[in-house]
């Protein structure tokens, strides 16, 4: 079904009963059959099956037969491409993709055109997103004006407009003095900075991991030192400034080792990884598949193993989709000229479940990395299911297989190496603030 905005005619969220589901809540450790009752946008009761809260009459009843119910996914990076790149994707298409993927809350980086460096732009984005009433959208503000790395943005104003942190996105801040000042200024107000670990020079012209594959295919290399050298700089600046640093998309075993030491030292640092880096490595580039062109690059098998281990031991905090829709014209190019990026919003759940399955990790444990943990990084009381909490959740069948095709994707982007491949784990319904914003046709919803 398509989600229309007509729901808005009724300002009060409906009273919803979600019965017969298996409820997974990583934060509380719950994994048991429960019936959920939602009213006025909140969870009002969570009861063993068959019970009903006193005086609750449901406007909508979703009767499940053992399918899973979990807190809505919290995605630390999804590019919605507005403003500026509407030919790649629109807020409408990508917000639909988000809820179709079970994502109820997402962070969008400031690499739009113009970049999110003025409160007006952030307010407009928030306003447009609110109008669509799907997932909650949390923009990151640009750390410097135009992401140019010279002049600081009005971070306090941007925070008031709704930014949850500040980032250079993929534009490394070349001038270390400006980087230092930006981190110092952000720490004054305790604003977190979200940075990629990319040296602005080393391997800057590279397009693939600096390993045997790049050597063999004749692709300019991005060495691991591109990440590690920058990490050393960033950690030292955190020591000096005390700023809270969130590291975006770590990619290498050596980088993760540095992060582990920084955390052991007690630095206020968190980090995420793209879900694709849990599965893909440089060798998957094969014969120059430009859908494998990403920043940071897919690295070696050893790096992938280190990423997986670091998620298990908590060194890496969260998994994100790193959703980046790219139009065909920018992808149907020789590998080195193709625009980096893959889509991920609708692949996040199946790829997290695949990882959990391969690592023999419980679904509840796995979901923690895409719900509670990222929500903690955002300092939001979200990503959990509890009575009195916001009713942001989704229903999924972990074993339902589906083929990734043009027809099964809502995102305008088709840039994924999984196109044509079968994945397990299908989102059946998504609820944001108590409203059903997405549902599969197969899911029975009875309306009073």
């Amino acid at each position, binding site marked *: 079904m398509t989600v229309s905005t007509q729901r808005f005619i009724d300002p009060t969220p409906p009273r919803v009963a979600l019965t017969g589901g298996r409820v997974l809540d990583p934060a509380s450790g719950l994994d048991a059959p429960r019936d959920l009752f939602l009213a006025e946008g909140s969870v009002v009761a969570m009861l063993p099956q068959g019970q009903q809260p006193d005086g609750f009459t449901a406007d909508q009843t979703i009767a499940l037969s053992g399918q899973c119910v979990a807190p809505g996914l919290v995605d630390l990076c999804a590019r919605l491409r507005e403003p500026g790149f509407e030919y790649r994707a629109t807020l409408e298409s990508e917000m639909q993709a988000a809820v179709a993927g079970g994502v109820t809350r997402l962070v969008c980086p400031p690499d739009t055109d113009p970049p999110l460096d003025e409160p007006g732009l952030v307010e407009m984005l928030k306003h447009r997103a609110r109008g669509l009433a799907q997932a909650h959208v949390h923009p990151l503000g640009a750390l410097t004006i135009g992401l140019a790395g010279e002049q600081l943005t009005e971070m306090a104003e941007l925070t008031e407009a709704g930014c949850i942190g500040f980032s250079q996105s993929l534009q490394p801040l070349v001038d270390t003095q400006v980087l230092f000042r930006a981190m110092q200024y952000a720490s004054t107000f305790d604003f977190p900075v979200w940075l990629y670990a990319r040296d602005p020079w080393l391997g800057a012209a590279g397009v693939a991991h*600096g*390993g*045997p*594959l*790049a*050597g*063999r*295919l*004749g*692709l*300019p*290399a991005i060495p691991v030192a591109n990440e590690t050298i920058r990490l050393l700089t960033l950690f030292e600046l955190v020591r000096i400034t005390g700023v809270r640093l969130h590291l975006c998309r770590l990619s290498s075993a050596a980088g993760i080792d540095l992060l582990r030491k920084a955390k052991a030292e007690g630095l206020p640092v968190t980090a995420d990884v793209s879900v694709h880096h849990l599965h893909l490595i440089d060798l998957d580039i*094969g*014969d*120059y598949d*430009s859908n494998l062109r990403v920043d940071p690059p897919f690295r070696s098998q050893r790096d992938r193993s280190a990423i997986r281990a670091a998620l298990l031991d908590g060194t890496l905090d969260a998994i994100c989709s790193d959703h980046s829709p790219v139009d065909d*014209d920018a992808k*149907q*190019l*020789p*590998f*080195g*000229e193709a625009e980096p990026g893959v889509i991920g919003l609708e692949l996040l759940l199946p790829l997290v479940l695949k990882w959990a399955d391969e690592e023999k990790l419980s679904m509840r444990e796995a979901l923690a990395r895409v719900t509670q943990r990222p929500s903690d990084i955002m300092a939001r009381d979200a990503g959990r299911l509890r009575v009195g909490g916001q009713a942001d959740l989704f229903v999924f069948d972990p074993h339902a297989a589906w083929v990734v095709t043009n027809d099964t994707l809502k995102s305008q982007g088709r840039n994924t190496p999984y196109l044509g491949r079968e994945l397990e784990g299908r989102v059946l319904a998504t609820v944001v603030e108590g409203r059903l914003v997405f549902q599969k046709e197969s899911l029975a919803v009875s309306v009073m």
Partner: protein
Amino acid sequence: MPRSIQLNQKGQLHHLLSTEGLPRAIVMQILDRAKDFLVADGQGGFEVKSQPLLAGKSIFNIFFENSTRTRTTFEIAAKRLSADIVNLNVNASSTAKGESLLDTIDNLAAMQADMFVVRHSQSGAPYLIARHINQVAPQIHIMNAGDGRHAHPTQALLDMFTIRHFKGDFTQIRVAIVGDVLHSRVARSGIHALTTLGVPEIRVIAPKTLLPSGLAEMGVQTYTDLVKGLQDVDVIMMLRLQNERMRGALLPSPQEYFKHYGLTEDKLRHAHPKAIVMHPGPMNRGVEIDSAVADGGQSVILSQVTFGIAVRMAVMDLLNQSGP
């Protein structure tokens, strides 16, 4: 799955994109076929025979990166086979007008071509083109005439032809490749062809700034000292050093490069006395190679050029024989 894009269902050569993954039997077939096109000229050299095997066929030279010399060798090969040849310098026309690579290919495919000879500055571009052509015009064969740093398969095949001609058995020789391996498609394609043909020892010799990662995985030994690397080798393949790389972050000056990596008669003496010296051209005399060596008795550089015509004819003939 990777690389099989070069072969059709029956295992015949359908596109020539890389020497990597090219079956030994096909390499030998090309070398043997090339021999058919050569006749001794009575003065120790060879002439290339004309044979109208591709009469009525159209071959498009599509050069996204300019190279008069390489284009000419393909042109001559096509003419000796009586094919019609069309030369297109695409960088100067359509792409400047904003047309996309695949739009250009679609347009040219609609002009009833049988073969595309493609050169592009980006590694992997011929793969993109071949995948696309397989969808829209599967009867067209793609020949890679050099893509970025990746591959230059016809150069490698003519080099193999040259080595076989002068040395005979691939399994009894040591080969050294000297120079800018990092940026060289000739080196990569050469290494894959040499390993496919069973050469037991392949060395590359260069300063560390000109060596890519992953050479060990490709089955070669690296040397940074020219004299040590040349010790007892039977074949020396020199690489061209691009002008723009002679001064900068990779190398300080052509003079210093020549002093340490230029092939002189003195250095050559460390190789096997009957070693041959090869170069893909165009040479930078006094940078990577001394004139005395380039013009000396061990140089087979001009033979390479003649053999190159025959080898390209052989590839065109073979591609023409494979169905879609």
